[in-house]
């Protein structure tokens, strides 16, 4: 790959300083974020790069490089926010509401302030209005009402318990039915009614009534999915420290720049005075995208006390007040011709959002996954008195796939057709929502490869569902598919600098959630520089040191950032070759780079990067890169299929997942090992969604009942099946010049429906409400037995 001569369309030099900008310098593009389309202004990259095609000869990109911080993590020392210890650091604890709705009558802090070691108390009057801290209107259980700061966490927690809050209870709504009842009160002040957008949301294409009339077969099902919690092991946390009017905040976050922007705006401080650092974080999964109460509490106490303040949300707070995937009820009807072509899909859904939220609902995937001319989704998003939802790994699609795919299984049964064959006959060949092509959709190949690896065709007859010698066990298999927008997009910037010894730094304003961002960026930079991977280090997670990058959400990080990093590395390499050309006495177009050396082609002459940069002294070689616009005439999606085998005990109702095979198409895979880790992570979270996880809300009192990890069950090692995760080889050269799309969220989407399908296959009856707990399995069996009699 010869990136020696880069054609500059624009220069950032003197011309711009004199006020003359190139007319095409700024353009608009669209970016898909968590199922929503955003229009953004983007600065055109200064030069264009040829895409790395599927057959490009690449050394570091595509290699199973070890995670660069793996040993630091294994030593327990990567620099998590909860491990930050600043000099004279003190600790804040949050006082929370214990009713679902009410009004604060009085707050008595006397006893708390009298406790030795207590330093300060923060109430509503002490917080800038923009922080929205400590509203006297209680709208959900767990809402912060006050905070206390003390010399130790223990004293702060004891003091928080001594703060007496008198509350006037008000009537709450915990369910959609309660929230939309004619006599329902607004669940929070200022709402005209309790619906998002004031009314249900209907999206439609074609004519669903005509499509259903034209169907040979129709099925109707009501499927329910639970409210589930992100449950990152590192809690939400911040450490804040002021130096004069400059604020530094360490935050466990998916978006350092967004936290900086939130803090600056809501505390009334210039952006340049706020620095946000996230060196390492212990998981986010969508719940850590903004500055939140704990962030403002730490910053405000730090200002008042002149000391570093940490505010770590405790586990109960983490489970009740940091976001969730809201529950859903999906009533769906699907019609098809007798040869299995879909004629219509109709969905009526209800989602209780919590006290805040957005329309990332189950309906979207009904418009996307299968080819169907007539689709209508009618979704009621109601605000209720419980904690606000937050994006949780493929929000909307993960729960929507459960309903849609269980519907497809019911349709396959009605048609007496193999569920895989039914899916093959309805692959969406283009983006039906926006009537445009996809840059690629190789779902058909995913089905083929997955079925082959799984041995799907061997599961034809009923005998294969029995386990010899164990009459109480039944086995079953299921399949489900996935589609999710993963194109990423601008703005994202990167700088690559060569140090005087030839080692290289990549600077980017991203963060590593555990996905491997650091490693991926170093791989791409090493590739484009022609450097050794161990000589390249990624510096991320610090708004004070790096150019801007967006949040790590929407499976966007790799597709957004790696093109900018590649461009920055090419820019730096270009400058290096300019310098080396004179030193090696060879024209630039004869030079190449490999393993950290500049070589003259077809000769034995070469110099190491360090030899070149040493000769330059303190002249610093820096390259800059930015992410260009997305193609406007094509949808960019990751697709995939997962196959599940389960074993169900029909006496106890216990479901065990034995095997999951997953095959996805995500364009170029920068690091197969890290990609497989993402896939396994999504599958295991999907398994928890299918079998165990459910936040239980007492609707009479409006209180969450299972707030700890004892009672809110996530999968453990004993629950893990054999997982065979695989990605198709390839590169999406239309999407961006690295050829990569996102993978983190696609991984979770098909898992729960594949497991639910397998359980239905094993039992001969579908369990239509997740999680598939023993009592639900036994109830479905009992209902089936009753009917057959």
């Amino acid at each position: 790959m010869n990136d020696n001569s880069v054609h500059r369309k624009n220069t950032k030099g003197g011309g711009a300083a004199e006020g003359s900008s190139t007319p095409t310098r700024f353009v608009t593009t669209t970016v898909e974020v968590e199922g929503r389309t955003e229009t953004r202004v983007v600065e055109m990259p200064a030069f264009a790069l040829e895409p790395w095609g599927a057959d490009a000869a690449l050394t570091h990109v595509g290699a199973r490089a070890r995670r660069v911080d793996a040993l630091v993590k294994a030593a327990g020392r990567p620099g998590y926010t909860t491990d930050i210890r600043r000099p004279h650091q003190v600790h804040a604890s949050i006082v929370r509401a214990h009713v679902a709705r009410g009004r604060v009558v009085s707050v008595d802090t006397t006893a708390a302030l009298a406790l030795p070691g207590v330093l300060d108390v923060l109430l509503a009057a002490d917080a800038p209005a923009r922080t929205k801290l400590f509203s006297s209107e209680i709208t959900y259980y767990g809402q912060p009402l006050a905070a206390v700061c003390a010399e130790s966490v223990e004293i702060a927690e004891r003091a928080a318990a001594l703060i007496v809050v008198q509350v006037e209870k008000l009537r709450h709504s915990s369910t959609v039915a309660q929230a939309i009842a004619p006599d329902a009160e607004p669940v929070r002040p200022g709402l005209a009614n309790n619906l998002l957008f004031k009314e249900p949301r209907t999206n439609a294409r074609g004519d669903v009534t005509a499509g259903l009339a034209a169907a040979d077969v129709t099925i109707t099902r009501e499927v329910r999915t639970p409210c589930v919690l992100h449950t990152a092991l590192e809690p939400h946390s911040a450490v804040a420290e002021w130096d004069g009017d400059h604020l530094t905040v360490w935050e466990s976050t998916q978006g350092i720049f967004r936290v900086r922007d939130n803090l600056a705006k809501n505390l009334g401080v210039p952006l340049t005075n706020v620095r946000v650092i996230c060196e390492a974080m212990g998981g986010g999964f969508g719940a850590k995208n903004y500055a939140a109460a704990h962030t403002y509490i730490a910053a405000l106490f730090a200002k008042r006390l002149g000391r570093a303040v940490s505010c770590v949300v405790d586990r109960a707070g983490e489970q009740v007040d940091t976001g969730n995937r809201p529950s859903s009820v999906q009533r769906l009807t699907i019609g098809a011709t007798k040869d299995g072509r879909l004629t219509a899909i109709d969905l009526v859904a209800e989602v209780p959002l919590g006290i805040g939220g957005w329309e990332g609902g189950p309906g979207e995937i009904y418009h996307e996954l299968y080819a169907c001319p007539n689709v209508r989704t009618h979704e009621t998003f109601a605000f209720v008195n419980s904690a606000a939802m937050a994006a949780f790994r493929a929000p909307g699609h993960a729960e929507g796939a459960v309903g849609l795919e269980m519907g497809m299984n019911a349709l396959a049964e009605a048609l007496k057709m193999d569920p895989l064959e039914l899916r093959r006959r309805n692959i969406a060949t283009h983006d039906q929502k926006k009537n445009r092509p996809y840059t690629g959709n190789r779902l058909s190949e995913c089905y083929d490869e997955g079925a082959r690896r799984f041995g799907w065709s061997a599961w034809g007859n009923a005998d294969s569902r029995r386990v010899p010698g164990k009459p109480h066990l039944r086995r079953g298999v299921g399949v489900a598919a996935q589609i999710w927008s993963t194109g990423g997009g601008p703005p994202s910037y990167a700088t690559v600098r060569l140090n005087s010894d030839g080692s290289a730094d990549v600077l980017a304003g991203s963060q590593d959630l555990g996905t491997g961002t650091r490693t991926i960026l170093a791989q791409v930079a090493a590739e484009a520089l022609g450097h050794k991977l161990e000589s390249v280090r990624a510096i991320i997670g610090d708004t004070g040191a790096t150019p801007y990058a967006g949040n790590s959400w929407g499976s966007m990080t790799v597709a957004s950032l790696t093109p900018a990093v590649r461009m920055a590395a090419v820019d730096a390499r270009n400058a290096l070759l300019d310098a080396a050309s004179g030193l090696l006495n060879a024209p630039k177009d004869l030079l190449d780079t490999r393993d950290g050396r500049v070589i003259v082609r077809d000769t034995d002459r070469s110099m190491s990067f360090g030899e070149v940069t040493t000769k330059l002294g303190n002249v610093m070689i820096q390259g800059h890169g930015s992410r260009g616009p997305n193609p406007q005439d094509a949808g960019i999606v990751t697709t995939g299929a997962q196959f599940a085998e389960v074993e169900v005990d029909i006496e106890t109702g216990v479901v065990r997942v034995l095997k999951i095979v997953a095959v996805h198409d995500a364009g170029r895979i920068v690091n197969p090992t890290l990609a497989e880790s993402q896939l396994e992570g999504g599958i295991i979270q999907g398994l928890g969604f299918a079998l165990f996880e459910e936040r239980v809300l007492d609707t009479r009192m409006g209180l969450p009942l299972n707030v700890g990890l004892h009672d809110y069950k996530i999968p453990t090692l004993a629950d893990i099946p054999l997982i065979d995760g695989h990605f198709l080889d390839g590169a999406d050269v239309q999407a961006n010049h690295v050829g990569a799309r996102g993978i983190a969220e696609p991984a979770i989407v098909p898992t729960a429906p594949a497991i639910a399908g397998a359980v239905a296959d094993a039992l001969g009856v579908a369990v239509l409400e997740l999680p598939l707990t023993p009592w639900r399995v036994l109830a479905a069996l009992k209902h089936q037995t009753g009917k057959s009699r």
Partner: protein
Amino acid sequence: MDLTLNGRRVSATPAGDATLLDLLRDSLGLTGTKRVCDGGACGACTVHLDGRPVYSCLTLAHGCDGHEVRTIEGLGSAIAPHPLQEAFAAEDAAQCGFCTPGQLMAAASLLASNANPTDAEIVAAMSGNLCRCGTYPKIVRAVRRASAVLRSETV
């Protein structure tokens, strides 16, 4: 009170109700041991007390008076890793890494008492350690790998 911490004598004056986890993280500054559930549900705070794995969040600091405690910092470092730490890195058994110290201490305890565990024995010994990123399959592979390395070293 005195305890032997990672092979060294340490004196401390914890509050009467302080846990071993409080003592390690808040008084002694050993932050490798993580606080997650603070109630014995997740295993992230696993350390060794006289060679046996315990949840330090459920262990009173004063109960460790005169005893021997080993934490992740005593297992090895990034520069001089224990074979288990090297195996976790080689198998990509840490994603976010927050549960990893607890996983490693549970695994070290298993291998100390059973040099060549079966997969079922690994699952049984380590099911008390939660991971949310989904590293479980790779944890099993890493423990197997470390077991092989440690056995070859002792031959």
